[in-house]
């Protein structure tokens, strides 16, 4: 690589392959403000905050300008200062400035940059579009009036997660970001990962809070409220109280939760130890039988929904294990209620998770019994920190408390679940213990923050091909290769958030660019500090397997099933009024392919026939969009009977069969 020095604000700065001028300026310790630049997604160049002057004449955006030899860069001329201030003023003029009540207050970049640049007035006309706030999602709240159109959420969703449910609509001053089909976030293919919330510099995308619901439960004397905290919480929550990223504050968290009124505080890592055993057994079984490989992990709910939407054919390859959160929830509602002698309805299980998708997971139908969910409420790290603050607890000065037993005991394997590669490492430890009786074996090769980690591991005399991916776009790319037969693996760990749960959508917003690595390191340190490192060594777990679990309830309590979500369910559009209780039910596919193959003409003929036969009163007609029989269109359903390559003659015949019996 060709290296040289360039001048930035009178400093000589060596160029060492930085991908753009902005990176080099930041290396020179000048923090140019930006709204739309994130090193891990594509350069967008829209906020125009990072404009700099090059060689005394050109004013260019540093983010999209390559570094070249001989550059003399100024970041702070009068013109540039005025430009930046005015851009912030322009943003504020169309921003809903209800800052004091905004969930993002204090973490808001617009607020911070306005202060940093000394913007003390807005000279422009305040014009905000107060579109309704979208509360349809269990995980994410979207408030368009706060949006500054930086496009970060759009690119994160598209590029990091390959989901792409958000995009721009309209033009010019009417531009806005919409979820697909202008629907609510809860009605679309959003996997609830919350990476958009993390990327949003303002309060346009925030976490759906359950804080008030949890307070209500805590204040309800008739309820026993217990809490589980996920592995990744202990190394991140401290950041909300001034600790460095990665600092373990487990003891303070436990104490704070006890002060706030939780009856018991447990550890999700205990649930994770169960996951390791169940998933490990499942894997060994599949490996030995050579079936349903590769096995995919199933502890990440965003990944599970992603698979349900885009890879329904691979759902049988997903581990049937519930996630640690849900194993914990299920076991506590089954076993703990008995121990405490209380009814299921009187035990409230609250989890504190780094994750927004866990809110969605807890509400899945599979995870509740008689309308009572295994996990009642899910708080993110951010929400839990807010509750501590609201309680006035001086977090940093708390005497560390300890988890309650038995659900508070875990091995190191359960703790490293919180980072990408951790699940694989934990399962490998268990596999080694089970297959070779070696509880000391170390498998560190899947550590690190790379998005795709591939390798072969020897356990005893077998060699396992493994892949660890984080970020759903990485997952998609890898799975497509697996499906195409280009690569083969035995076990694939997938985490939706890049780096795993430590980087979850519910974690504290950090200004520290190394926070993810620091949090991961913190988890591995926790693992080291613990007595036991292999899940099967957990004595409480052993006891529970011996006393409470049998093959039947293991299946019911610890395993689950998945739904094919490839098609939007229940999206039939009624074409006739009062469609209920009509004896003749006709459903016609108006998907593109059927349309091209003459669905519209068929529909017209059908309507003419029904009118002619005076059957309109008895018929409910609806349209659907794609029954996935495209090559056999047009497709018509008459009272459930599917007619392919349907003609009006075929349709009449089917209708007559129904009407004969009327």
């Amino acid at each position, binding site marked *: 690589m060709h290296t040289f020095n360039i001048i930035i604000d009178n400093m000589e700065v060596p160029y060492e392959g930085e991908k753009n001028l902005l990176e080099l300026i930041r290396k020179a310790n000048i923090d140019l403000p930006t709204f739309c630049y994130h090193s891990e997604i594509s*350069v*967008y*160049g*829209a*906020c*125009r905050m990072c*404009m700099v002057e090059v060689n005394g004449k050109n*004013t260019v*955006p540093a*983010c*999209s*300008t*390559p570094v070249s030899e001989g550059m003399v860069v100024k970041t702070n001329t009068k*013109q540039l200062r*005025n*430009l930046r201030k*005015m*851009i912030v003023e*322009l*943003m504020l*003029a*169309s921003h809903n400035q209800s800052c004091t009540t905004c969930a993002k207050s204090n973490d808001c970049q617009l607020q911070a940059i306005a202060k940093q640049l000394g913007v003390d007035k807005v*000279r*422009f*006309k305040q*014009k905000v579009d107060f579109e309704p706030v979208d509360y349809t999602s269990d995980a994410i709240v979207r408030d368009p009036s706060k949006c*500054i*159109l930086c*496009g970060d959420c759009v690119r994160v969703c598209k590029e990091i997660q390959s989901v792409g449910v958000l*995009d*721009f609509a*309209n*033009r*010019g*001053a*009417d*531009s806005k970001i919409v979820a697909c089909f202008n629907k609510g976030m809860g009605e679309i293919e959003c996997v609830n990962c919350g990476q958009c919330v993390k990327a949003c510099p303002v309060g346009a995308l925030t976490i759906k809070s359950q804080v008030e619901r949890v307070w209500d439960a805590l204040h309800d004397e008739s309820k026993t409220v217990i809490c589980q905290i996920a592995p990744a919480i202990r190394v991140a929550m401290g950041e909300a109280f001034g600790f460095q990223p990665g600092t373990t504050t487990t003891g303070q968290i436990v104490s704070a939760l006890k002060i706030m009124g939780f009856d018991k505080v447990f550890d999700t890592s205990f649930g994770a130890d169960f996951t390791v055993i169940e998933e490990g057994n499942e894997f060994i079984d599949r490996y030995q039988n050579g079936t349903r490989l590769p096995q995919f992990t199933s502890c990440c709910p965003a990944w599970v929904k992603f698979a349900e939407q885009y890879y329904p054919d691979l759902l049988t390859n997903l581990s049937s294990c519930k996630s640690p959160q849900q194993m914990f929830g299920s076991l506590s509602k089954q076993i703990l209620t008995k121990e405490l002698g209380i009814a299921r309805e009187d035990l409230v299980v609250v989890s504190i998770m780094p994750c927004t998708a866990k809110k969605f997971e807890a509400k899945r139908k599979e995870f509740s019994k008689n309308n009572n969910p295994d996990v009642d409420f899910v708080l993110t790290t951010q929400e839990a920190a807010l509750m501590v603050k609201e309680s006035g607890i001086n977090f940093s000065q708390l005497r560390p408390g300890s988890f309650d037993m038995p659900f508070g005991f875990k091995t190191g394997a359960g703790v490293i679940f919180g980072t990408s590669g951790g699940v694989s490492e934990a399962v490998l430890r268990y596999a080694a213990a089970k297959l070779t009786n070696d509880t000391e074996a170390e498998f560190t090769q899947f550590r690190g923050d790379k998005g795709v980690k591939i390798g072969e591991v020897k356990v005893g005399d077998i060699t396992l091909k493994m892949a660890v991916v984080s970020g759903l776009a990485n997952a998609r790319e890898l799975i497509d290769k697996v499906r195409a037969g280009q690569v083969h693996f035995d076990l694939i760990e997938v985490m939706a958030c890049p780096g795993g749960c430590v980087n979850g959508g519910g974690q504290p917003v950090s200004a520290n660019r190394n926070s993810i690595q620091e949090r991961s390191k913190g988890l591995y340190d926790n693992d080291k500090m613990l007595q036991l490192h292999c899940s099967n060594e957990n004595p409480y777990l052993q006891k529970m397997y011996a006393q409470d679990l049998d093959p039947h309830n293991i299946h019911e309590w610890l395993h689950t099933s998945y739904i094919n979500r490839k098609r939007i369910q229940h999206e039939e559009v009624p074409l006739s009024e009062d469609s209920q209780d009509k004896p003749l039910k006709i459903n016609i596919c108006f998907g593109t392919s059927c349309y091209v193959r003459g669905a519209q003409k068929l529909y017209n003929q059908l309507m003419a026939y029904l009118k002619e036969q005076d059957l309109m009163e008895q018929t409910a007609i609806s349209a659907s969009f794609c029954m996935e029989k495209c090559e056999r269109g047009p497709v018509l359903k008459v009272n459930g009977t599917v007619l392919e390559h349907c003609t009006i003659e075929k349709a009449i015949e089917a209708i007559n069969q129904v009407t004969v019996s009327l």
Partner: protein
Amino acid sequence: MNNVDLNTIANNYTERANTFKRSVVVCAGTGCIANGSMNIYHQFIRLSEEKGYKITVALKKEEGGDTLLKHSGCQGFCQMGPLVTINPEGIFYTHVKVDDVEEIIEKTLKNGEIIDRLLFENQEKGKIAHQKDIPFYAKQQRTTLKLCGMMDAEDIEEYIAHDGYKMAQKAVTQMNSEQICDEITRSGLRGRGGGGFPTGFKWSLARKQESEKKFIICNGDEGDPGAFMDRCLMEGNPHSVLEGMLIAGMAIGADEGYIYVRTEYPLAVKRLRKAVADANRLGFLGEHIFGSEKSFQINVFEGAGAFVCGEETALIASIEGKRGMPMPKPPFPAQKGLYGKPTIINNVETLSSVPVILNMGTAQYASLGTKKSSGTKTFALTGHVANTGLIEVPFGTTLRQIIGEIGGGVINDDGTNVGTDFKAVQIGGPSGGCLTKEHMDMPLDYDNLLEVGAMVGSGGLVVMNHQTCMVQIARFFMQFTQNESCGKCTVCREGTKQLLYLMDDIIEGRATLETLDLIEELAQTVKIGSLCGLGKTAPNPVLSTLEHFRDEYLEHIVNKRCPTGQCTALRSYEIDQSLCKKCSLCMRKCPVGAISGSRETGYVIDKNKCIKCGACMEACKFNAIKIA
């Protein structure tokens, strides 16, 4: 496909054309079609059958007959349409109606008799029979537009008869890419789409890129208000566009081209598609073109209806099926363009000029125009001018010549012709600026215009008379760019919106002197800070009107008065007592009771109550109500 002999096609066409005594050319540009020219065309066909007068339809390739009937692309003088030209005399009929056709056949076609009623007339010369004598045409130098309006746009053979595809054949079979680039560089051709980047140099940049695949894109997303040059070329001479693209393709080593046409130009789309099909049929496009080993194919792509798609990177995104939003440059399209491949994007007029230049010789073309802006430029001449239409003049022509001679003078709101006494000329559309009388004798070229804060742009020339409010004009363009901004970058999206609010403040009487400062500061921010050319040039109309008409702005702001009376909110109505007949009609019409008085005392308007609706003025039969 074997090499087609262009000469044979040309000779056959000419020989056949020479067998006719006369030819009738009905203008079928969009303007004339809108005025019913196709009905006239069909009336000729119908009557020839009924009256037993043999008219041969050119496109049908029939033999025999006395007169050849053609429909052409835009003949330029849209205002006088529908236009019918009769050759070889060059008799030029204007405002022709279907009912006139019979008379034209009986008198002109049969006997060569001229129908006075249908001739163009001006004060100076009276009735003028021949196109070449009409000042609108006489003062132009139609070079790129030469065939447009004379030839049948849908007849590839006629294009070939006018030396069409000769240069493409030469470029494919006898020249290497470097030679083509050099030729175009020597001609001094600069991009006609706005920026004026030297075309030959641009091509050689892409030529040097190593890539298996390269693209040529013809930018036909013409969207400036009042501009229609590219539309006329695509409709009137589509083959010249294809030929230009083909030559450009050979120059950079591309084998595929896209024509990105506004979807609002259906006629252009139709004619381009036919032209591509015909050129494919004759082996000028496709594989083994002109019998060589080379191939070149052209796709006609309809735009998605956004002004911003005229911007190179947004246009590329649009072809790729993405939202038409500009991307930061670098990388430039010449390095990484359509589907990541080196891509040259040229404007329609630029490409259409290429075969013309090669045909006439680069040296001769370079001798036209000025030193740094060679050749000719088409302009869409509109606004308060006697003759509006599509014109072509050499660079260096002055406004005095364009407005006074070609345009036939400025027309005031009351209909009087005041010669060259214009107030301003907006040039270059929403990205351009305005020129005033002090620029009357400035030779118009790229560099002179840039120097005075305007630009050639795509070539819209809007002439404004003294009754025009310049603040309103600036606001109009601001409204346009605000609507057409893609919404991507903050300064353009929010900046144009706020500039519009601030302009409204002036027009509606809320502005203070601070408003003016803020406008200037914001305009600079938008200019410096925007991502693409649309934003960078969006404040130009405001900045240039502010420069040349600052007093008019101040009058609005300080005295809350619009000197032209165009700004309704600033109007102040008065009753001229000397004209008032005391009929009291105004008092009765006033919706807010702002007029009071009696037959004895006369009537007065209470300015505090008046809502400036103008109902009184409309009602008064004696023109006694005036705007102060």
